[in-house]
Structure formats: C-alpha cells, structure tokens
C-alpha cells in the first residue's frame, strides 16, 4: 500500500502552516491589544463585517440577511482606526483595569482563490474574556477571510464573520474578533 494520500490538499503544507502561523500571530496581537501591529496586517481596502444574527425557521432563512440589515461590525479601515483611536484616548473607563482576553483560533482551512496572490482562509475564533471579579464571557465567531500578498507580507482584505449568539452576552465588545 502506498504511503501517500489518495487526494490532494487544498494548499501545500508550507502554505497551510504559513496561514496557521499568521492567524496565531494575529490572535496574539489582539490579545495583547497591539493595535498598531494589527493594523499593519490589514489591507487598505479591508472590509470587516459581522451582521446581527437572528433565529428564523429554516424555511424562512432566506429573509435572514437583507440589504438594509443591522450589523455588529461593518467597518472599513477608517472605522477600524476610529475604534482604535477611541481605545488610545485612555478614556474608555471599562477597559481600565485591562480585561484579560484570549483569542483561540481553530478549524483553519485554506483555499486558493481565482485571484492570483489571494487566499481564502476559514477559521473559528473563541474569545474568552476575563472581566472584573471573576466574570468570564465566552463568544464564538466563524470567520471567512480573504488574505492577499502585498509586498513581502499577507494582508487581510476581507473578513466576513458569523456571530453565534443572537443575544450578545457581554455589555461591551471593546475588542476585535
């Protein structure tokens, strides 16, 4: 029996590992609130989008997302920079003392796209946020990314997210997914 798999991976192992490392690094920067370095990972035309989830019957699911629909994030670079500028004022009292946060990235899949130098990466991020006095909040988000080669690095060009929770379980989302 041959020792090779009877199918081809979506990308070669080097590429896969590179994406794994990239997503881990991004998670670490977000955990550390190193927004300067995180911003440097974003393409200038980034679209960072998370619609508001709702529960519909399966047969009515088609009405779930409408053109004019509410969102948790619908940000281009300018709006992301605005959120970061707000944190940077040091006047956001709810983040002082700092809340401990961990982004755990799992379920990574990487696919080539039709566009040269662009990859589609899927992942699930579980955020564990330890707030004052032992309060813990856990949130799960599936991410559908487009990453693009720019110069000698990969930049996040698009992130579509699905937030699992129809009722947001924390009183603020002063962070990114």
């Amino acid at each position, binding site marked *: 029996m041959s020792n090779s798999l009877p199918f081809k991976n979506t990308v070669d192992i080097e590429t896969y590992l590179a994406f794994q490392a990239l997503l881990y690094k991004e998670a670490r920067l977000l955990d550390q609130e190193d927004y300067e370095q995180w911003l440097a990972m974003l393409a200038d035309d980034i679209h960072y989008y*998370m*619609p*508001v989830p*709702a*529960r*519909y*019957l399966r047969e*009515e699911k088609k*009405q779930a997302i*409408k053109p*004019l*629909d*509410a*969102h*948790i*994030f*619908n*940000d281009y670079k*300018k*709006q992301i920079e*605005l*959120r970061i*500028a*707000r*944190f940077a*004022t*040091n*006047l*956001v*009292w*709810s983040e002082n003392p700092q809340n401990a946060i961990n982004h755990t990235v799992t379920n990574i899949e990487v696919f080539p796209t039709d566009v040269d130098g662009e990859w589609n990466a899927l992942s699930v991020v579980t955020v564990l946020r330890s707030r004052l006095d032992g309060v813990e909040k856990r949130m799960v988000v599936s991410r559908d990314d487009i990453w693009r080669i720019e110069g000698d690095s990969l930049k996040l060009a698009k992130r579509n997210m699905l937030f699992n929770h*129809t*009722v*947001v*379980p*924390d*009183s*603020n*989302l*002063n962070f990114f997914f």
Partner: protein
Amino acid sequence: MSKVDVSQLVDNKTGRQSRTIFHEQDIYEQEQERIFGKCWLFLAHESQIPDPGDYFRTFMGEDEVLVIRQKDQSIKAFLNTCTHRGNRVCKSDKGNAKQFTCSYHGWSFAADGALQSVPLEEDAYYNELDKSKFGLHPVCHVDSYKGLIFGNFDPDAPSLVDYLGDMKWYLDVWLDAMPEGTELIGSTQKVEYPVNWKLPVENACGDGYHIGWAHAGVMTVATSMNIESLSLGNTKVDSSTAMAGGGMNGHSIISSLDGQSGYAFYPDPSLPVSYLEANRDTVVSRLGDTRGKQFWGSQINMTIFPNVQMLPGLNWFRVYHPKGPGKMEMWTWAMVDKEMSDELKQTVLDNVCRTFGAAGMFDNDDGENFAACTSQNRGLQTRQKDVYTNMGLGKEYTHPEMPGVISDGLVGEQNQRYFYRRWQEMMAAKDWSAVPNYNNLEEANATEGKIDE
C-alpha cells in the same frame, strides 16, 4: 402576597431613591404586576409586520408575546404559550405564517389565535374537546400610535392616546414630522446586561451629565459638530441651549434646540443635515415653528414610560426587557423617516450600529457603569444607603408652549426624578383609578404631593 410599601423608597422632593429598588425580588415582582402588567408596552413597529400573517416575537415584561398582523390588517397579540401544556408556540424571531404549530403534541393555532387543529382529536379526545375554549391567550388591548404598536394586559387601562397624553406633542417631532411617517430597519440588535432595567431608562431619560465624562473616549474621536449644551470632560455647559421636559405621566424628553445637533456624532453629517434642510419647510408647516425649527433635527432623547426610548438624530429606537432584578435585555433598531433615500437610510443604520449597537462606541461605555450600579446593591450594608438624582432641584418651570415640567439644559436630573415618581405611583396603585394623571399642568399642580400624604 402582601405588597411592598413604596412610599419611603422614592422621594421626588429630594430626588432620593432607596437602592433596594434595584435589587429586591419582591419589588421586582410588584413591578411585573403593577408596571408591566398595567402600562402600555411597545410591541413592534407597523413596518415590521406589514402583511397578513407577518409576526414578531417579543416580550411584555417577562411575558413572551407574539404580535401578528391579521387578514383585515388589524393587529393582535397573544401570549406565546400553548394552551395545552404550556410549550412555546413560536420559536422564530419573526416571519410570516398561516398557523403556528406547537412542537410538543402538534396543536395548531391560526393567526387570529384560534385553536385550529388537534392531533388525534377523534381517537383520543373522543371529539369532546371544545376547541373554542383553547385559543391562544390574547393581550387584551392592542393599539397603535403613528406606527408604534403597543399592548396592554390591563382591561381597565386608559386608552393609548390618553396614556401617551402630553408626550404626544414631543413624540410627533419624530413620528409625525414627515407625511409618510417612520419605519424600523434592520434586524433586532439584542444585548444582555447584568443590569436592573430602570438604570438604562433613567439614563436616557435625562442624563446628559454622563455624556461628556462616561463617553469621553468616543467624544474625543467621533464628534463632528459642537453641542453647546454638552461638553467633553464636563468642563462647562450652556444650559440655555437645551431643555428637559418631564412629569408627563412618566414620559419625558431632553432636547437641544438648535435643529441639527442630532447628527453631531456622524463622522460626516452632511447627508443627514442636507435632508433636514431640504425638508425643514414641510416639517414646519406640519408641526409649527418651535417643533419644526428648534426640535426637529436636534439631539433629542424621548422616553415612553416604562421602557421605550427613542433618539431622533442618532435615530435609534430601543426597548428594555426586564429579566429579573439584576438582568435585562436591550433591543435596538434604527428608526428612519420613510421618505429618506436608501443611501441616507444605510448611513443612518451604519451610524446607529457604530454608535449604539452591540459594538457601538458610545453604548460600550455605558454597560459597565449600569452593571456596577446594580451589583453593588447585593451588599446588605450598601443597599441600605440611598442614591440621589438631586441636580437642579427646584429649578423647574412651566412653558407657555412646551408641555410638562421644564428645566434648562441637557445636563440635569429632573426627568429622572419624574421617572421615579411615576414608578412610585404605579407601584403604589392597585388599579388605574389610583394613578394620578398629569395630562395638563393645572392637573399636575392639583395632584402634586398626593404621594406624600
């Protein structure tokens, strides 16, 4: 159950409240009965259920209800619970349905609430079940005011227009400014907070005081227009540029009077401001000079007692659902004028989500404060102390044109005092005949002090 005596828990004359009202389970139960069981509660906007069979699942207090558009376009609401064993009848947030079939034993209810079919009706019930007695339990009053649908569980409640009373003069600044009226857009943005439901209500009732401080971070980066009646860091304010109106059966308003500052927290307010100017004459012709020029377009907070808040300009519409003394769910939508262009509607919706949505840069400052104002009262010693809304006591006056009791400025605590006065009146009254009516100021003066007797 014996009732809690609320006479010492709130004092409108000194602006004092006992902290127990944010903590005690028996007070909470009494709120369910005497406030959420008697007041008109917001159910949905007509635009959310335009066609027959359209439904929306929501709450009146802790009671889950289903609001359904009927074949004749009227609207009915029912407790969302099966009359057989009590299961939830509808699990979807909204949709369109000919009937609602219970997932437990399969009883099926029509859109008008009638029990339509029962599995094994002949074989197991021997055709002896009187289906006419097992329809969904209706909410006894359902009525609309200019697009907003309300329900009331109390057969003896005043009519909706009487309930809204003098507040209608202010509500119309949004609901009736443009000929086509308003609509809610986007799906419901729901956030759970470890917060007593009254704290966010009193906040948006009249608390301009916190804006410059609690929201200092976002004010620093996201303010595009000057609002003279607010200031960053609470350094100074010009009280003559804004008003607070309260005392109107618990409903209230705070408003700038410049006719455009509602859009001050838009990164680029030019699109909404040009909409305001293009339609200013129409609105003035419908509402007159004061409301058309000074109110319409201004930074405004309106509160409909007990749990609805709407901020034209920032364009959000919100209801707070109590979930126990220490928990509530906040539901937010964007509300727009139907006449607005799709581009402007999208701009408004984006701004609502970015400022007051789940990741809203303003809203994300408030939750932590409300949560601690709630949780600190778990301490037995702590909750025997009082808290105060005593800013500007005695500075109230009446105005020849503007209804209610008026104070100057967005920074004040008058409306919070009147919110708690109404809370106390409702909590003390076993039925509506014992609830004072402040629908005009003469009456207000006549009944002033009734609580203290």
